[in-house]
C-alpha cells in the first residue's frame, strides 16, 4: 500500500459530515468526438454554499453538471458525488440529489399536477407544503398540461421536480433564463431558504449575472472546457478593481506592465486600469510612483466576468 500522504485516495471520504465536499472532480476530461468539452478539470465544491457556475456558451457548464449528476460518464478522470463515484449513485443517494436541466424532458401528456404526483411517488422526502408554496411563488397553474406550457412555465416545472424532495445537493442549469424578473427574484429567495433550512448545497449556472450575484457566495468559472476560477465570491470582489490614475503633468506611461493589470487605457493624463490584486497597498504605490491622483472602485460580477474568463488566454 502506498502511503496515503503520497498517493491521493481514489475516492473521497463519505460526504455525510457537514463540511465534506458534495462534488469532487479529479482530472475530468470529457470529449464528444473531436470536441473537448472539459479538459483536465479538478475541483472540490464547498458544502452548504450557493455556487455560481459561470462561463460563456460552450464553456462546459452543462457537461460538468451532467457528470456530477451521473448522467454522463467522463472520458477520463473521476467524479465523486455525495461521497459516491457519480456513475454508481444508487437510489438513496439519488434521492439526495436534485437536477434542474436547461431543457428538461417531461411526460408531456400529463398535467403539472399529475407529473408532480408521479415524481413524488419516487421520493419519501417529497415535501407537499414546499410544492404548494413553490407553485404559488412561481405562479404555475397545476391544472395545465405540460405540452401546452410556455418555455418559462416548463422551466418552473423543472424547478419543482428538481427541488420538492429537498435534495442535499441541487444542481440548476440555467434555471432562470426564461423567468420574468419577479418570479426570478422569488426563486432566488427560495434557494436561499433551502440553504438556511437544510444547508443545501446549490450549484447554479447562469448568464444572468446581475441576478446570481445576489445569492452566490462562491464562484466556479469555466472557459473553453478549462477551470479558470474556483474562489469565494467576496474574495473576488476584493481582488478585482478599477483604478483611475490622473496625472496633472500628463506623465503617465502609454501602458502599464504590472502583472496585476488585466485591462488598460491610458492617454498620458488619465489611465483606467482593471486589476486583480489582493495587495491593498498596490494602488497607492502605483499612484505615488507616477505622481498621480488615484481613485479606485470595485467591480461587479458583470464587469468581472470577461476578466475571469480571459485568464486562460493570459496565462498561455
Amino acid at each position, binding site marked *: 500500500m502506498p502511503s496515503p500522504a503520497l498517493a491521493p485516495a481514489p475516492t473521497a471520504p463519505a460526504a455525510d459530515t457537514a463540511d465534506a465536499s458534495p462534488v469532487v472532480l479529479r482530472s475530468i476530461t470529457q470529449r464528444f468526438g473531436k470536441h473537448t468539452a472539459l479538459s483536465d478539470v479538478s475541483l472540490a465544491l464547498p458544502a452548504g454554499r450557493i455556487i455560481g457556475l459561470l462561463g460563456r456558451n460552450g464553456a462546459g457548464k452543462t457537461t460538468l453538471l451532467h457528470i456530477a449528476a451521473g448522467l454522463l460518464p467522463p472520458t477520463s478522470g473521476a467524479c465523486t458525488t455525495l461521497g459516491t463515484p457519480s456513475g454508481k449513485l444508487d437510489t438513496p443517494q439519488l434521492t439526495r440529489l436534485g437536477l434542474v436541466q436547461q431543457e428538461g424532458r417531461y411526460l408531456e401528456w400529463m398535467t403539472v399536477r399529475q407529473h408532480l404526483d408521479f415524481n413524488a411517488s419516487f421520493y419519501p422526502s417529497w415535501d407537499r407544503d414546499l410544492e404548494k408554496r413553490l407553485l404559488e411563488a412561481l405562479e404555475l397553474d397545476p391544472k395545465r398540461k405540460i405540452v401546452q406550457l410556455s418555455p418559462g412555465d416548463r422551466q418552473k416545472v423543472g424547478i419543482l421536480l428538481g427541488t420538492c424532495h429537498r435534495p442535499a445537493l441541487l444542481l440548476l442549469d440555467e434555471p432562470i433564463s426564461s423567468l420574468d424578473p419577479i418570479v426570478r427574484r422569488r426563486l432566488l429567495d427560495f434557494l436561499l431558504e433551502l440553504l438556511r433550512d437544510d444547508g443545501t448545497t446549490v450549484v447554479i449556472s447562469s448568464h444572468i449575472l446581475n441576478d446570481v450575484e445576489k445569492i452566490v457566495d462562491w464562484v466556479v468559472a469555466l472557459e473553453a472546457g478549462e477551470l479558470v476560477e474556483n474562489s469565494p465570491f*467576496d474574495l473576488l470582489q476584493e481582488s478585482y478593481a478599477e483604478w483611475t490614475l490622473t496625472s496633472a503633468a500628463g506623465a503617465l506611461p502609454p501602458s502599464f506592465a504590472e502583472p496585476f493589470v488585466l485591462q488598460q487605457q491610458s492617454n498620458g493624463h488619465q489611465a483606467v486600469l482593471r486589476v486583480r490584486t489582493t495587495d491593498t497597498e498596490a494602488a497607492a504605490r502605483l499612484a505615488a510612483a507616477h505622481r498621480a491622483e488615484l481613485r479606485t472602485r*470595485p467591480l461587479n460580477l458583470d464587469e468581472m466576468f470577461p476578466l475571469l474568463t480571459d485568464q486562460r488566454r493570459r496565462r498561455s
Partner: protein
Amino acid sequence: MPPLLSIDLHNGVPAYRQIMDQIKLQIATGLLPPGSELPSTRALSADIALNPMTISKAYSLLERDGVLERRRGQTLIVRERPAEAQQTARLDPLRQQLTAAAHLAKQLDVPPAQAVKLFRELLDS
C-alpha cells in the same frame, strides 16, 4: 428595533462589507445604541434576502473588531465602548466621504482654502 439595511449587490463592494459599514454607521449615529440586539443570522438572511454565510461573516468580523459582542449563547448585541472609540467610529464614515471629495477637489484644481470654505458653508447651512 432591528437595523434596516440596504445592500447594493451590484456596486462591487462585498455584501458583508456593506453590512459592516451600515451597522457601524447606525451605531455611530445612535440608531443602534449599546446593548441593542442584532437579529439572528437566519432572520436577517430572510429579511434582506442575502446568503446566511455573508451575514455570519459580517457579524463575526464586527465581533472581532469589538463592535458587537455575544451574550447568553448566541444573541449578538452592540457593545458598550469608551467615548474615544465612539468618537473615532463617528469620524470613520465621514472620512470615507471626504476622501472622495478631496480627490475631486484636487482634480478640479480647487484651492484647499476654497474647498475648506465650501465645507464650512455646508456645515453651517
